[in-house]
């Protein structure tokens, strides 16, 4: 790797690391004041456990040997053959990918908020990492789904659809919260989180080019435009539908746009990111209301934003993919004369990821439920998880 490319990958990795605290604040601000620390901790816990597991065996199982389409092995156990510093490119890439391994389970935390035992979460994360994240990642990046021809630039299928559908499975086992949801306890905290997320997402998407090149620049531009367009779309829908353009709506739209452009960032160009953003903003703004229709309690809308947004982006690739622009080796989207082939592969890839993730997550949760239990007591839920799970109070104003 050239020094300019390495610099870009390292910066991008740092940016993606920063996203997990950003996500924690985004979620934590939306939560009630008595559960905010638990929310933060579910996210920070991923930052503590996943990096270690990732270098021990996660990366190896998710990637090596590169010619296996289903699951890796232990050849790169503890990064065995890739620790040679050399120009640092391999190591930087492992670190960069490790950041994605951190944030993917963290995304799920927003759904199970306000009622899940922290001890259950502490077990859920590593198990889910190996049984769900690692195989799906393998299939999508270099495995059978990739070989068939589906594409996923920075993790629409492998990360957002995957975590989003897992969130649904998790809350189906977990059950609904006892008390009615309450409004966000601190919208300024949500906006701090949103700012950090957008900022970090440039690393997430443009860093996925793994070089400082034209594809990175286009992915950067697309990340900028899709987030803006989706935020705008969500805001306008709300303004018209609910009477007010809300802060939370702007934030949610931005995140929906970022999610949707993730799989497409390095494959589309021109006005496509704006269209993808607009579609994601409108669709997700309606999708977050589905939970009330279907009756599952996805506390902070992981399904409506990450699952739906990721799917929107991943499928729209089937229309907008533009290989000539990128000297790319992927198929043309429908609008570029590629016919439905790419779209079909995108559908197959997402269906595969959805089925696997949903089923395995459901089973993990069932096993946890039958063994250590997944819910805090009713009293702990009423008094708040900050106290019951962490023995702490978020704000001590009286001192």
């Amino acid at each position, binding site marked *: 790797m050239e020094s300019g490319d390495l610099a870009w990958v390292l910066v991008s990795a740092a940016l993606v690391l920063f996203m997990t605290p950003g996500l924690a604040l985004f979620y934590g601000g939306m939560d009630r004041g008595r559960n905010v620390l638990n929310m933060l901790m579910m996210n920070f816990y991923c930052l503590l456990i996943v990096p270690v597991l990732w270098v021990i065996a996660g990366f190896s199982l998710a990637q090596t040997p590169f010619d296996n389409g289903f699951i890796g092995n232990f050849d790169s156990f503890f990064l065995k053959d890739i620790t040679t510093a050399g120009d640092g490119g391999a190591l930087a890439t492992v670190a960069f990918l490790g950041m994605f391994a951190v944030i993917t389970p963290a995304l799920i935390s927003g759904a199970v908020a306000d009622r899940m035992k922290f001890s259950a979460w502490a077990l859920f994360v590593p198990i889910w990492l190996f049984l769900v994240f690692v195989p799906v990642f393998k299939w999508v990046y270099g495995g059978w789904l990739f070989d068939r021809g589906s594409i996923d630039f920075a993790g629409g299928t492998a990360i957002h659809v995957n975590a989003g559908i897992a969130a649904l499975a998790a809350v189906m086992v977990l059950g609904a919260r006892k008390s009615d949801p309450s*409004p*966000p306890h601190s919208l300024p905290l949500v906006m701090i989180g949103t700012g950090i997320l957008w900022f970090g997402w440039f690393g997430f998407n443009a860093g996925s080019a793994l070089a400082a090149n034209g594809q990175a620049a286009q992915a950067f531009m697309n990340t900028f435009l899709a987030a803006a367009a989706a935020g705008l779309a969500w805001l306008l829908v709300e303004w018209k539908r*609910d*009477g*007010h353009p809300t802060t939370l*709506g702007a934030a949610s739209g931005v995140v929906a746009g970022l999610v949707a452009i993730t799989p497409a960032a390095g494959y589309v160009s021109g006005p496509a990111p704006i269209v993808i953003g607009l579609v994601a903003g409108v669709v997700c*703004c309606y999708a977050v209301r589905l939970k009330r229709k279907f009756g599952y309690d996805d506390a902070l809308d992981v399904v409506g934003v990450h699952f739906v947004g990721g799917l929107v982006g991943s499928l729209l690739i089937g229309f907008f993919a533009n290989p000539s622009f990128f000297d790319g080796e992927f198929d043309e989207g429908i609008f570029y004369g590629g016919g439905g082939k790419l779209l079909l592969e995108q559908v197959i890839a997402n269906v595969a990821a959805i089925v696997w993730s949903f089923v395995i997550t459901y089973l993990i949760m069932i096993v946890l439920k039958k063994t250590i239990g997944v819910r805090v007591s009713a009293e702990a839920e009423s008094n708040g998880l900050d106290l019951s799970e962490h023995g702490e109070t978020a704000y001590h104003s009286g001192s």
Partner: protein
Amino acid sequence: MKLITAIVKPYKLDDVKEALKAAGVVGITVTEVRGFGRQGGHTETYRGAEYKIDFLPKVKLEILADAPDVDRIVDVIAAAANTGKIGDGKIWITDVETVIRVRTGETGASAI
């Protein structure tokens, strides 16, 4: 000795305070409270879900006063807090048996 308690709109606090100062009141204790009343609440919409907010921000003033001053003080508050709109608030009077000033131990009217 009486205790005058008044619930008023938060943005009226400054006006009420200035009016009371002008009327010679030397002490007030203020608490931020939330009130539910005829005014009703409002609805906030987050991600398309409506949350009925029954309690609106209000401010509570407590003023210890000598009995003869009470009516005047009440009038001052009522005048300063009035906007003519529903939700302007309430004032009520309760009897106080003794008042003690912590610093000096004085009691009664001189402790106010």
